[in-house]
């Protein structure tokens, strides 16, 4: 299966999907850890996808979103942002509101 299709399946099959370095329990990068911690703090169930296990996925996700860095957060198939945006949205309450509006928390 081509990588674009694999990514589409992942973000369609998981309401909240975090492409990250490492796993939610063992993040391998501070930025991935920060986003993972925000999601845990909001008590959101999310699927963490470790891009370090798959180089094709690591490059593919950057192309898919036209976004050069990891982590990348998707909610209901929509790209929300990377670490800076997620942190900013968490601090100003926008992120919580998205999860509530989409009935995820």
């Amino acid at each position, binding site marked *: 299966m081509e990588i674009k299709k694999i990514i589409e399946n992942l973000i369609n099959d998981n309401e909240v999907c975090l492409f990250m370095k490492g796993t939610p329990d063992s993040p391998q990068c501070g*930025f991935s850890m920060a986003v993972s911690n925000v999601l845990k703090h909001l008590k959101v169930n999310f699927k963490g996808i470790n891009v370090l296990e798959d180089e094709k996925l690591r490059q593919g996700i950057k192309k898919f979103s036209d*976004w*050069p860095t990891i982590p990348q957060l998707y909610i209901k198939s929509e790209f929300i942002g990377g*670490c*800076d*945006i997620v942190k900013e*949205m968490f601090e100003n309450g926008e992120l919580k509101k998205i999860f509530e509006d989409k009935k995820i928390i």
Partner: protein
Amino acid sequence: MAIPLDEIKRLIIDSIPDASIEIKDLMGDNNHYAATIISAKFNNLSKIDQHKLVYRALKGKMGNELHALSITTKGK
């Protein structure tokens, strides 16, 4: 690999000439930066598109030579 702070500033100004940029080298290692960038170009753009403008200005260096640049963007 690392990029000097002035180089990052120059790349951003090249693409976003009205930008006021405050940039900090967080660790003093030319590799972990935090930048706040204010420009009228960000007006009416989503956060994602604002950050994409900055990434484009950095011409593919982000995620490669430049690992850690945290970005805050604001319109004006």
